[in-house]
């Protein structure tokens, strides 16, 4: 891990150059340019708001559109970093066969690219906060830490997935399906408070309720989304009770994921 961090520092210029290339290429001939990047969370927000008007989802004292947009921000960032990260090695086959640099540069580049798009989404969020007359509090300083944690989670998936994808392209096919399933298992459409209310307060699943809630929070994105909404919209600190199960899971898996990636890296050029 230490050597990895050193590598990141050493190859920061390369990562920056590759990420810049990704962004430039994607939007070069598009009139709206990088604005397309924020289209996805905006569209989803509108659809969810529309759906909510039929089914009715409690959103507490925060207006639903901004609550779901604040959930979509970390979610879309995570989802896109993970899926781009998984494809990043195979889509750079030409480079891998021709030149050497540590291969973790590719998943990291995918993430750096998405980080730029996240930054633009933040501008939209700020605009909405102005519209709803919400002032950021001191707790907004938690945001960098939350984003960093999201990156770690996405990298955990990217490293393992990207390496496996070199051998079995099934991974890149299965991942979008798995990720969209995971979205329904994360508090994106509905707030976490709703899950908490059902399971902990109302004990809806009887004696399994507590365990089910822990299982739910094993998904790191549950804690992340909730924490993001807390610090940005509600003026509250992150809820560590919902964060730690997912964090433990991530910390346990990340070394394995990275180890697998580094081990598989040796054969990328031969197999890809």
């Amino acid at each position, binding site marked *: 891990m230490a050597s990895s961090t050193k590598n990141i520092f050493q190859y920061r210029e390369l990562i*920056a*150059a*590759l990420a810049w*290339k990704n962004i*430039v*290429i994607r939007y070069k001939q598009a009139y709206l340019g990088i604005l397309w990047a924020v289209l996805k969370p905006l569209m989803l927000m509108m659809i969810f708001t529309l759906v909510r008007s039929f089914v009715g989802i409690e959103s507490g004292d925060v207006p639903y559109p901004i609550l779901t947009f604040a959930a979509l921000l970390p979610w879309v960032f995570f989802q896109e970093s993970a899926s781009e990260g998984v494809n990043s090695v195979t889509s750079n086959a030409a480079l891998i*066969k*021709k*030149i*050497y640099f540590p291969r973790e540069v590719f998943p990291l580049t995918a993430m750096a690219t998405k980080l730029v798009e996240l930054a633009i989404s933040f501008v939209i969020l700020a605009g909405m906060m102005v519209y709803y007359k919400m002032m950021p509090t001191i707790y907004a300083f938690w945001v960098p830490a939350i984003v960093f944690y999201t990156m770690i989670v996405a990298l955990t998936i990217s490293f393992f997935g990207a390496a496996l994808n070199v051998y079995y392209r099934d991974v890149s096919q299965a991942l979008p399906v798995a990720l969209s399933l995971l979205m329904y298992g994360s508090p994106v459409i509905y707030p976490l408070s709703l899950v908490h209310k059902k399971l902990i307060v109302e004990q809806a699943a009887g004696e399994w309720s507590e365990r089910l809630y822990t299982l739910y929070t094993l998904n790191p994105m549950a804690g992340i989304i909730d924490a993001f909404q807390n610090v940005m919209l509600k003026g509250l600190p992150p809820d560590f009770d919902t964060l730690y199960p997912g964090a433990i899971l991530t910390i346990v898996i990340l070394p394995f994921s990275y180890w697998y990636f580094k081990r598989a890296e040796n054969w990328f050029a031969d197999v890809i």
Partner: protein
Amino acid sequence: MPIIEVNYLTKEYQLGHLTSLKETALNTLRRLTFRPVQKREQFKALDNINFHIEEGEVVGIIGHNGAGKSTLLKHLANISKPTKGEVIVRGSVAPLIEVGAGVNPELTGRENIFLNAAILGIPKKIVRQKLDEIIDFSNLEQFIDTPVKRYSSGMTVKLGFSIATSMDADILIIDEVLAVGDLAFQRKCFDRMEDMIKRQGKTVLLVSHNIRQVQRLCSRVILLDHGQIDTDGEPKTVCDMFYEKNDREIKTNIDHAQSSAIGSGEIELVDIHFLDQLGHRVNCLTYDQNCSIHFRIHVLQELENVTFGFGFHTTDFLYLTTHNSEEQLSISTIPPGNHEISCQVNRLPLLPGIYSIRFGITAGQAAGTIFYGESLKHFQVIGKIPITIRDGFFALDANWCSDNIKDCQMIDFNSKETQKL
């Protein structure tokens, strides 16, 4: 300490396509239950390679297709990992394995310079300093802000080469890159490489099929054969050996190969054979000896005003010489049937090697071609040649002399006697 050390390097590839998920799962199950796993055939691309390269050496790597040259370079550039053995490289490597590997068609030339430099690990600061030099070398000033997708393929390669050679690495790895661009640019690349080798004293590894180029640039040549080192040593010795090997291979190939001949059908070539100066039928000709070449033809209908011509060419179709019967043999008519014509060659000037014959016949007032064929017969020229005419295809009948250097002797090669001037 050598800058590159290759110890017992072996690289195996599995033959056949990748295993499916199912097969992998089955194999894992077999391994867990201690049953034999299904193994696939292995192919040894490199087989126990050992060599050391000192700093400043310029090493050429030659060998036939599939001998393992590119695989070896990939290991030196750290792209592939050995199955067995180790590769130690002490210094930074600039791999020119394929120029323009990182060139992106959507970006402009200038943007690509920065991107490729980053890929090659050149710091941004240095690129900014060298930007003008790179653009200047590539001859692309006019197009540097145009997306590369609008470039011709030659322009793309020029750009790639310019970027790659601007990298300040200890070791340069070059794989067939000089065969790019137009002649003028090739010349420029060659000069830049020579500059890097001879003046900057860099360590260079060069893979090429252009043996003449390798012989000229390198101080040492490694000949690979089926993944093993066949010879490692002096460029001249190794290259000669490679030529010899190639000649033999070409000869065995062509003995079976069909030559291509076109004709109007009025005439057929039956046979070509050689006679040496004593009149014996031979397959090999001897340098500097008289010989004759006999063409046996079968004429199907009467022909008028017939002219014959033949020529020697190399196996890669470099036409060396031709000879025409026009002014030596005047044939007004040839009746149908078998005929033999021959051409006497005095003191064959071809240097030892493999050559081939082309032959053509014209007829009629308009001298229309009624038969023409190339590579009709391959033959070897043998014989001892003096050191003065080592290179090339022909011996030049020439003598050196000097008027004002004292203590100078003229040597008569033929009589092997020295005369005091």
